[in-house]
Each structure stands twice: as structure tokens, then as C-alpha cells.
């Protein structure tokens, strides 16, 4: 009896400690647009998102979720992290599945063209795992991405990395605001960019040859597709528009053949740039990313594609989805400012080039 009482006390104490440790860990995590995006994702009601986009840095400034909601009644959430390690995508899909099981998954495969090892830097890994809630998926992602087993413990317990914020006085009110993953993202994961960098249009439509992607990337992609197949997930693979090249187009073609051979849809949005009306002089902020101007054109195009291709219920007007209306209102206010800024920037650049 004494042993049992002791055991019960021990378990209760450990449970209290673990709960407090988890909250403390969430509080000391650094603030970033990625943290806000992930926190917002977890805050969305279960099974309320129609489309989840997973991918690297082009994703968040490209998929204007509030606009797509307002125009097409589709709820879309971009789960983008900078230089997202490809091997981590499966775990993001798994994590997203837990809350939004019946969604369509749109996976940006742009980074499958690079060696996966080159993406496995500490910041890139932490962008994913240190924005996830503690779960087996998180542990799986860490085990997969952190190559040296002895280093994994610092990722499992990310408080070991960030605990100094308290001593350094870097803790802010925002840290306490979203520690319970209950604060929705104001723009539903969208990230505003109002910078402009003009480029010459690129035409790679004539390129039909293929160039293999790195072997390890291919294995990761095959594994990802096998997982999606085993889970019978609705998935499409895409490549976001950017300033591509002939050589890269060949890799796009290789990816297309590989993905389509497994029965999945693949869209290289570089091929559709003309259709959604990208203006290379104003719609990009660097060679790999579109700004708001490009995002609006792309989102209108992609929203229409989704509405035409899939049968999502239109929940506009429903009381359960008012947060999306609020997001659009906030987004539109910010977008108006960003549009003006883009126009200014474009004009300034045009004057300079003259």
C-alpha cells in the first residue's frame, strides 16, 4: 500500500512537471512568422480546412488564403517554413492529418531538386520541429532530420535551446499569448511581402528533356508518395512560380514524370505563369518568391482551379467560419497598404532603370 501511494504521488508529480515543462517550452520558443503560422494552424477548428499547402519559403507569401476564401469559399492554410527539409514534409503531413484529416494536401516539391542533406541545417530543422506541438510526429521528424543521435535530445527538449530568453530579457507578451496554440493566425498563415525586384520573363516551355533529381531526394519523394498512398490522402504536387532556368525545367519534367507515374497530379506553375498573368517586372520580390501582387494573381488562379477541380463545400456565410471573414477583412486592409507600397517600389525601380 505504501509503495502504491508512493508510486501514485510520483506519477502525479511527474505529470504536473511535464505539463508545466511543455508550457514553459512553448513560451520560450522564439517569435517568428513561422511560429504564428503554426500556432494559427493548430488553433483552427478540427476538420475545417479544405486545403493544406506544405512547402518551403515560397508557400507563405504565395497562397493568399483569405483571398481564396473570400473569392471561392475554400479554406486553405499554408504550412510553409524557410528552406524546408524535404525529409520533414511527411511528418508535417502526418501532423496536419491529426487535425485536418480530410483535407487536400498540396505539396510544393521545389526543394526536391536539391540535395536533402544541404537542407538539414539546425535553423531549417528547428523551423519545423520547434513550431510543432510535442507529439510522436515531432519526435519522428527529429529522428529523421537530426543525423547525430546525441544531438537529438536538444531538439526533443527545445527549451534547452531557448531557455536563455528569460535571462536575456527577450521574453515578450506575445510569448505568453500563443503558448497554448489557441490563437488563430490573423491572415490564416499568409505572409505579406511588398518588396519588388524586376526580372526578365523566362520562357522554358520548349524544354522537354529531363534531368534526374538527386537520388536521396527521389527516395524521400517515393517514401512520401507511398505514405500518402497508404493513407489514401488527396494529394497534389506543385512547383511554385519563380525565375526558373532550362536546367531546372528539366528537373521539373523529371519530377512530373515521376509523380504522375504514381497517379498523382503535378502542376508546374511556371508553365501557368502566362495564364494567371504574372508580370515579371512587378510581381516578384526576388528570383524565388512572389510578392503580394504576384500572390493575388496566383491565388485567384489557384482558387479557381481548386473550385473547378474539387468539390469543396462553400461555407461562406456560415457562423462557424466567421474567423475567415475577419481574416479577409484584415488581409484586405493590409493588402491595400502593400499594393500601394508595391506600386511605389515598382515606380522607383522603373525610374532608376530609366
Amino acid at each position, binding site marked *: 500500500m*505504501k509503495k502504491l501511494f508512493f508510486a501514485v*504521488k510520483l506519477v502525479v508529480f511527474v505529470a504536473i512537471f511535464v505539463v508545466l515543462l511543455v508550457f514553459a517550452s512553448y513560451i520560450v520558443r522564439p517569435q517568428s512568422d513561422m511560429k504564428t503560422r503554426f500556432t494559427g494552424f493548430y488553433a483552427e477548428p478540427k476538420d475545417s480546412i479544405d486545403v493544406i499547402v506544405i512547402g518551403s519559403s515560397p508557400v507563405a507569401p504565395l497562397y493568399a488564403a483569405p483571398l481564396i476564401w473570400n473569392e471561392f469559399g475554400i479554406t486553405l492554410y499554408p504550412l510553409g517554413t524557410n528552406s524546408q527539409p524535404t525529409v520533414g514534409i511527411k511528418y508535417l503531413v502526418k501532423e496536419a492529418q491529426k487535425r485536418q484529416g480530410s483535407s487536400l494536401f498540396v505539396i510544393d516539391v521545389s526543394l526536391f531538386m536539391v540535395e536533402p542533406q544541404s537542407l538539414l541545417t539546425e535553423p531549417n530543422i528547428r523551423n519545423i520541429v520547434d513550431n510543432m506541438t510535442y507529439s510522436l510526429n515531432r519526435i519522428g521528424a527529429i529522428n529523421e532530420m537530426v543525423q547525430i543521435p546525441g544531438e537529438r535530445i*536538444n531538439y526533443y527538449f527545445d527549451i*534547452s535551446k531557448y531557455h*536563455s530568453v528569460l*535571462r536575456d530579457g527577450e521574453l515578450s507578451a506575445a510569448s505568453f499569448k500563443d503558448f497554448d496554440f489557441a490563437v488563430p493566425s490573423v491572415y490564416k498563415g499568409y505572409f505579406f511581402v511588398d518588396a519588388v525586384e524586376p526580372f526578365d520573363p523566362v520562357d522554358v516551355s520548349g524544354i522537354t528533356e529531363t534531368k534526374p533529381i538527386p537520388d536521396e531526394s527521389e527516395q524521400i519523394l517515393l517514401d512520401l508518395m507511398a505514405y500518402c498512398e497508404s493513407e489514401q490522402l488527396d494529394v497534389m504536387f506543385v512547383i511554385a512560380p519563380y525565375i526558373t532556368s532550362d536546367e531546372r525545367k528539366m528537373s521539373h519534367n523529371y519530377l512530373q514524370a515521376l509523380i504522375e507515374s504514381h497517379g498523382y497530379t503535378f502542376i508546374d506553375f511556371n508553365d501557368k505563369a502566362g495564364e494567371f498573368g504574372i508580370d515579371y517586372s512587378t510581381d516578384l520580390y526576388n528570383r524565388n518568391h512572389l510578392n503580394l501582387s504576384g500572390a493575388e494573381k496566383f491565388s485567384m488562379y489557384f482558387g479557381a482551379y481548386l473550385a473547378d477541380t474539387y468539390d469543396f463545400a462553400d461555407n461562406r456565410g456560415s457562423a462557424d467560419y466567421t474567423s475567415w471573414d475577419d481574416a479577409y477583412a484584415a488581409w484586405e486592409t493590409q493588402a491595400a497598404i502593400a499594393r500601394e507600397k508595391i506600386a511605389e517600389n515598382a515606380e522607383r525601380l522603373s525610374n532608376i532603370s530609366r
Partner: protein
Amino acid sequence: MTFTTLYFLVFVAVVVLVYLLLPQKIKPHFIILASLVFYFFWKAWAPVFIIAFALFNFVMAKVLAKQKSKKFFVLLMSVSLSVILFFVFRYGIFNGIIAAITGGNTIMILFPLGFSYYMFKCVSYLIDVNNGTIAPEPRFDYFLIYVTYFPEVSMGPITRAVDFLPQIRIKKVIDTTALNKGLALVAWGFFKKIVFADMLASMINPYYNDLTLSNNGFAWFFVAFGFLLQLYLDFSAYTNISIGVSKMLGYDIKPNFNAPFFSQSISEFWRKWHISLSSWLADYVFTPLQFLLRRLGKFASIIPALITFTLIGVWHGGTSSYLVFGFSMGVLVAIDAIVARKRKKLKKTLPKSLFSTVGIIITMLLNILVFVFMRTGVAADGFAIIDKIFSFSTWSLQLGFGLEFFIIFALSIAVAICSHIIESRKDKFLDGFARLKLPVTWLVYLVVIFAIVLFGYYGPGYDAIEFIYIGF
């Protein structure tokens, strides 16, 4: 497996839980297994070495007990062998021999972790058996526990066989009070080490690594003081953890510190600092030497003090600075002995509080200066720092430290004072803690644990700082 790692915590948690659930008969053997596993984590060959060393001393104790004549000779041979082995490892003589044989190709044979501590254990055991203070342990497995006991093996305390061996035979039951006290000591140890000792180290290490970093004597005084604080917080933290884990396993280990910075003389300081080592040397070196030289009057205390403390220095390491450290302490203790009568007279004439305050301050200042040599590794560096401190013309309030340094420094002093109060109250503090209501106990634990988690010096971006005494 360093004490202040998560691995050690998991190891201890598993060992304690399994140990408590095991039948009484198996418990001692489980302790051996745990200790050998702990030692294995340091180096795979280490368990073989420690078993062989324990076996040698176990056998020699039996031989000594049976020996009718030439007992002293057998004792001398046995002890000498241990001491020679100690010096051979300490000064890397094996590596030199191998290099000479192989023509320069050498394999690095490391000094076995904690050898200096368990060598002392074994030597005192042999002497005690020889003197008849203790009967030789009939069971090798029990003696092996004494030598390999994992909470002590890496840095002591140097518990005597007479205090430890009988405890193995005492039935160990789940004692929640002992568990609570043990856990409290472990948490307190972690708190001192990770939040303060390592933080202090990170602040003063740059100065010791680059003596040109400051020419301000006042700044160097703070750095030297910082090291003494760090050393106390570091070593007393280890001792707390060691004694705490032992309490959870049902073993009572004598304290290694007893409020040393409250000492009014260097002699008193050494009775309260690293007690298990200083009392060992007092019993097995100083007192026999004093007896041997009893006809030399005042020198009967002075010469043994110089020899004993020089030995302490040599025990710490084979560099000139340890020699200076030990010899200086010997000189200070000898001076203590010389002025003992005058001190007594002064004590009677001066107000008690004034006498004790002045005594504490002078003792502290002397320790600050002498312990510099323990940190530098090279005597010349130690003298250079002392020279800087005594160059009063360089003293300036522009110390070059950030605000954080002073906050950590002040808090470290506060924690060291708390630690001294706890030590000076002996078991009363722990008894009081164990009587607290459960929610209060849990609250205290949570506050301490989260202070460690949130303010500790650990994790990526922080260089792990080993316990200082693990190097000795």
C-alpha cells in the same frame, strides 16, 4: 556520464526505482552492476581496472589480517603499490614508457576516473585493517560496492570503510522521508552547479584563459573571488548530489563541507572544506607525522603541516601551480599553529563579533589569493595574477564587467551563504524540509527545477562545464 546531465538523471531514476523494488538479497549486487555500468560509460576498460584494483586491496587486507610478523612491511608494500600506480597514471608515466618502447608511437592511457578518490579509500581500509580499527571485509562483492560505489566513484567523498561497509548489511526499505531528503539534496546540487557555478565559470574563464584581458587589479580580485565561489558551488553541488543519491539508496554519507567560508582561520577552513580528504590526510599523514616528530616542539606541527598540504597540492595534479597551492596552504596552516596562543589571547581581549568577523575576512582573503594557483595550472600565471591584484595603482572602478556579471556574482554569494547556513545546521534543515506539507514540498521542487531549466547554463550554445574536482 557527468552528474549534471540528463543521462545521469535518467540513470539515477532507473537505478533508484529498480533498486527499491528489488528483493533485499539482490540489492547489493544491483548496486555493483549500476556502479560498473556507470564506470563503463566513462571508458569501456575502466570496470576491469577498478575490479582488479579492488581485488588487490581485498586480498592484501586478508593477508594483513592473517600476518603475524612483518605486518608493517606488507602494509607498506601494498600502500606503496597503490601510490606508485597513482603517480604513474597521474604523471602519464605509462604513456612515456610506451612511447620509449615504440619509438614515439604512443597510446594515451588516461588517468582512471576517480582513481585518486578510491585509492584513498583502499589505502585507509588497509591501514585500518592493519591497526585493527576494522576487520577485513569477508565478502569481495561487498568490498567491491565500497570501492566502485557510483555516487562516490568519480569525485568522492572519500568515505571510510568503517562508515560504509556496515551499511551494506542494513536492510534497505522504501523510506519516503529518505527519498525526499535525497531528492532535495540532488535538486539543490543541480541548482548550485547549473545555475550558478557554471554561469560564474563562463564569466571568469575568459580572464584565466587570457591574462592580458584586464590590467585592473580590482577586476582580478573579483575574478579570483569568482573562482573561489565557483569552486565551492561546483564541488559542494557535486557532494550534495552524491549524498542525495546515496540517501535514496539507503546509504548515509558524511558531509564533505561544513560552512567553510565561515571559518576564522585557515586551519579551521581545512577542517570544513573537502572534509573527507582533509580528515583522511589528518588521520593518515599529519597525525602520524606529528607523532613521529613529537620531540621537535613547535616543528612537530609545522613540518607535518607543510608535508601534508604539499601532498594535497601534489594530489590535485602534477603542475607547479598545485605545488605552490599546497605549499602555500601548508605555510598558512603552519603560521596558524605558530600564532595559535596569540590568537587565543586576542580573542579574549577583542569583542567576539569583531574577532570572528576579522578572522572570517582575513581567511577569505587568503583563500581568494591562494586558490588562484588551483585555477591557473601554471604557477607563473598564478603569480602574475597575484601581482596584478597587488598592483593597487591599477585598481579602478571601471571593471569592464557587464551588469549580468554583478547580478550573477551577488546571487552566487547569496546562494553560497544559504548553502553555508544549510551545512551549519547539519540535518536540521533537511529534517524540516521533509516535514513540510506535500503541496509545499512539490512547490519547492517545482520552483527549483524550473529555476534550473529556465536559468541554467546548459544546452546548445553553452559549453558544458565539467565538475572541477573530476580532474583531480
